[in-house]
């Protein structure tokens, strides 16, 4: 039996939650769809492919204070940042939810990152499965699916007269307390994303063609901006510096991307990844080689944001098939 919640009940339920807790949901901002805190249910957009920027920002903000250092009677008082705001993230797509779950690897690996851990703990995720995957989506090839509910607390799937509700975790259960759901025998549709990207054996293939000139040829057209890393739900590289404002010093962590010029430049000016080809290779090797080697899953969830956002159409799906082709040729060749 499928539990159903009507559109109006859903909106009134969300409006109720909004009274005590902050609800982030996809809203239209100019011509963008972004996750923003919403004050009323009608600000929420329900029919959208995906947001321009990924919800990773709610867990790994573009700018975050790690701790403050304030001089106090001869000493410096360090106060680590505490996340005390309970947040509801509504409308997260299955691929993005998988992205967040994947990033638990690097962030919660010993010694765990306390800020990421607090954000994860304080955030309840209500997923919205995709009814019609977009042309840029390839989630099924990356281990996710348009209705993959494994990484959210509650999963909603659109049906004729409302949304099928699947409660996954007790956090979800707690949130749904007091909400009566109708029983129905209608089966939620099972959308498919039939784009098939040959990701099988990519780790071996990319290892074989690691030194192939393919990367420098590809880097010809790359302009080395940080768009792909900043729209991506699974890019997590960061930079740390201090900022002082009126006597209070904050140690700030911000997004950083392996395509930035000074990303690996060390004191004295030496930069092991000075040329373009190696920097571009680093991005795809991190996702398709280093990440799976260390955490098991591929570092890409197939959301397709970088495919749309890249100014010069460096398409990770095309790269995966190129790498497989070249990896195979190199396989038969020398080694």
């Amino acid at each position, binding site marked *: 039996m499928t539990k159903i919640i009507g559109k109006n009940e859903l909106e009134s339920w969300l409006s109720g939650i909004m009274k005590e807790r902050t609800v982030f949901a996809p809203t239209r*901002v*100019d*011509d*963008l769809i*972004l996750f923003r805190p919403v004050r009323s249910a009608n600000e929420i957009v329900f029919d959208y492919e995906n947001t*321009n*920027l990924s919800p990773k920002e709610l867990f790994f903000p*573009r*700018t975050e204070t790690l701790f403050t250092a304030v001089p106090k009677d001869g000493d410096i008082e360090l106060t680590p940042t505490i996340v005390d705001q309970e947040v509801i993230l509504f409308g997260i797509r299955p691929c993005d939810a998988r992205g967040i779950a994947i990033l638990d690897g690097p962030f919660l690996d010993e010694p765990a990152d306390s800020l990421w851990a607090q954000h994860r703990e304080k955030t309840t995720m209500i997923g919205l499965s995709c009814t019609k995957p977009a*042309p*840029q989506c390839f989630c099924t090839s990356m281990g996710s699916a348009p209705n993959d509910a494994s990484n959210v607390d509650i999963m909603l799937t659109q049906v004729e007269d409302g949304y099928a509700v699947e409660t996954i975790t007790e956090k979800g259960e707690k949130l749904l307390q007091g909400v009566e759901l109708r029983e129905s025998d209608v089966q939620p549709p099972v959308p498919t994303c039939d784009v098939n990207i040959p990701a099988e054996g990519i780790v071996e293939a990319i290892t074989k063609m690691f030194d192939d000139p393919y990367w420098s*040829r590809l880097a*010809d*057209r790359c*302009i*080395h*901006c*940080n*768009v792909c*890393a*900043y*729209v991506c739900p699974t890019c997590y590289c960061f*930079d740390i*510096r201090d*900022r002082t404002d009126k006597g209070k010093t904050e140690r*700030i962590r*911000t*997004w950083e*991307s392996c395509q*930035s*010029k*000074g990303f690996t430049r060390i004191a004295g000016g030496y930069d092991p990844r000075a040329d*373009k080809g190696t920097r571009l290779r680093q991005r795809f090797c991190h996702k398709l080689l280093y990440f799976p080697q260390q955490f098991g899953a591929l570092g890409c969830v197939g959301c397709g944001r970088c*495919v*749309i*956002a*890249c*100014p*010069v*159409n460096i*398409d990770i*799906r*095309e790269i995966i098939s190129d790498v497989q082709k070249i990896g195979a040729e190199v396989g038969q060749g020398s080694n």
Partner: protein
Amino acid sequence: MVADFTQQIRDKAKELLEKGTVECVIGYETGSDGFSARPAFIYESAEVERLIFDNTCSHNLVKYLLNKKGKPTAVIVKGCDSRALNLLLSEKQIDRDNIFIIGVVCPGVVEWGWNNHSDQLQIRCNWCRQHNPVIYDFLVGEPVTEGPPDDFADIAAMETKSTEEREAFWREQAEHCVRCYACRQACPGCYCIDCFVEQLDPEWVGIRIAPEENLMWNTIRAFHLAGRCISCNECERVCPVNIPLSLLNRRMEREVLGLFDYRAGMSEDAVAPLITFMKDEKLGIGE
């Protein structure tokens, strides 16, 4: 008409590569969505079939020449792009003898986007008065006569807003900015080795990706392009959060036109307005 542009470009590219006049032809090829164009680097004459030209060829390819210093290279430029060649030549960044310029009379470029089969012209084509390339070695297409001068209607519209409204408008845009620097990386006029925004000593713009820092970044970036921007509007196209950067650039373009009657990139040996002066000019400041 545009179809045979492609053939003319392919033939010229083949000839240049076979004769060894150039080592590489920088042009456009069809992207991974089978529809919109993307930059292409052709090194072998056998590969010229990849080259295409249609109204999705939005990229300004001139900046790639900065990576090809000392190597003879051919580049395909539309009308507006060609002004970037004059900009970089007048600023001694590229060597004229190393470049073979294939100019294309521009048919107008549609909204660029992956799998975005739009047929709506980009806004830069509405204000465009430079369909014919200003500099070329080989011309594709027949030169057209340009329309009446640009009236900067978009800027006038913005100026009807009050100062508070404008301040709020740019503050909100600054909230969207993620400082990915795609605008800088796509701009032919932005080629500093160590950009002010990444300098640590002095730290002009703080590390935070926050509205105040973003405002400072966008203000100074626009100022550094004053009298140099050739309005190819690639900065606005590549912005992942659609910040209307053309408003800032064109506000400066109108001011430079008004004060110094100067348009960037119109000739190889032009002198940019901010590196020269006229002793007795009245600019309505300081009196």
